[in-house]
Every structure is written in C-alpha cells, then in structure tokens.
C-alpha cells in the first residue's frame, strides 16, 4: 500500500480512474444479472462484467506495475483470454436456454413463431 501511494500523482489518478470504471461496470453487470426479468435479458448483463470490468482492472494493474519499473504486459493475457472466451460461453448458454425452451419476458419478440412477429412479411 505504501508503494502505491509513493507513485507519481498522474499515475495515481489514472489507476484510480480505471479501477473505479471497472468496479462500477462490474457492479452494474451483476445488478442486471440479479434484477432483469428473464434469462435472455439477464444473459446480456454480465457481458459488461467481462469486457469493461476486467478490462478496467487489467489496465489499472498494467499501469501500476509499469510505472514502478519495466513495462510488463503479462496481465493482458487475462484480458485477451476473457475477451476471446466470453462470446463463446454466452453463445453456448443461449443455445442451451433455447434448447431447454425457457419462458421469455412478455415483451420479447419470438422469431420462431410466425405471424405478427415478422413485420417485413406484413409489409408485402
């Protein structure tokens, strides 16, 4: 903790900004996971958690280690890995939810059903 307070002031502002950005976005993502009405709306909330939350924390950690000495980019490995794998796991979970036929929120438009859901068919 003392070494962090001995850093230059501009880097302290940068690190604090990125830490606050990441933690606030992670909090918003988890709030969406807890409060949104059905699974398909809940699925899109934790995406903010991975990209912006982890991204902000990783950038802050890179700045904090790089200012003290040589530039280290090893934390970027975590960010790149998560950015690669988050869409894959979200896709698998959405396919599993469609497969188990979960109930949708009443305002979700279900494209598997014919009828009024297709607006372009009504047009012609």
């Amino acid at each position, binding site marked *: 903790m003392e070494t962090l307070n001995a850093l230059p002031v501009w880097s302290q502002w940068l690190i604090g900004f990125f*830490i606050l950005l990441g933690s606030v976005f*992670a909090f918003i993502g988890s709030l969406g996971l807890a409060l949104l009405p059905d699974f398909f709306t*809940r699925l899109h909330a*934790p995406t903010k958690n991975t990209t912006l*939350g982890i991204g902000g*924390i990783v950038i802050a950690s890179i700045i904090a280690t790089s200012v003290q000495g040589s530039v280290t980019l090893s934390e970027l490995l975590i960010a790149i890995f998560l950015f690669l794998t988050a869409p*894959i796991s979200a896709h*698998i979970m959405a396919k599993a939810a469609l497969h188990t036929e979960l109930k949708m929120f009443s305002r979700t438009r279900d494209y598997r059903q014919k009828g009024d859901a297709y607006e372009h068919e009504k047009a012609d």
Partner: protein
Amino acid sequence: MLGTILQIAFLLFSLSILMNLWRLVKGPDLPDRILALDTIYINSLALLLLLGMFQNTQTYFEAALLIAMFGFVGTIAAGKFLLRGDLIE
C-alpha cells in the same frame, strides 16, 4: 487516495459476488445458475487482480489466469451437458 479507491472497489466487487450468489440460489432454471457461476468466477478473478495491486505482488497473476481458463472450461462443459445430455460423445 488510492487506498480509498481500492477499498471502494473491493466493496463493489464483494456486493457483486453477493448478488451473483443470490441469483445462483434463486435460480429459477439451470442456465441461470450456469450464468451466475460464470459471473462469480469473473468477479473473483477481478478481486484477485485487485488484491495483487493492493499487496504490490505478482503472485496472484497466475492464480487469476488459472481461474480464467478453468472457469471457461467449466462453463462450456455445463452448457454442452444441457445441450446434449452428454459431454463426450
């Protein structure tokens, strides 16, 4: 200044993990629980990175990387099990 910001970040991430645990217990379906577990491992990974910054060590970096890899494998395995009813066909 950074000490206060780090404490605020610890508080926010802990509250996030508590909300994810509530979603994990409440359900109501299996994909919700998989999604809650996925979010829990991402939040705990961020907590580990913050702890590494707080104590000014590089020790927790490998643990965070391992949590990222095994969490992804676990999520894919649970999702594939829901999709197929089997992992290795």
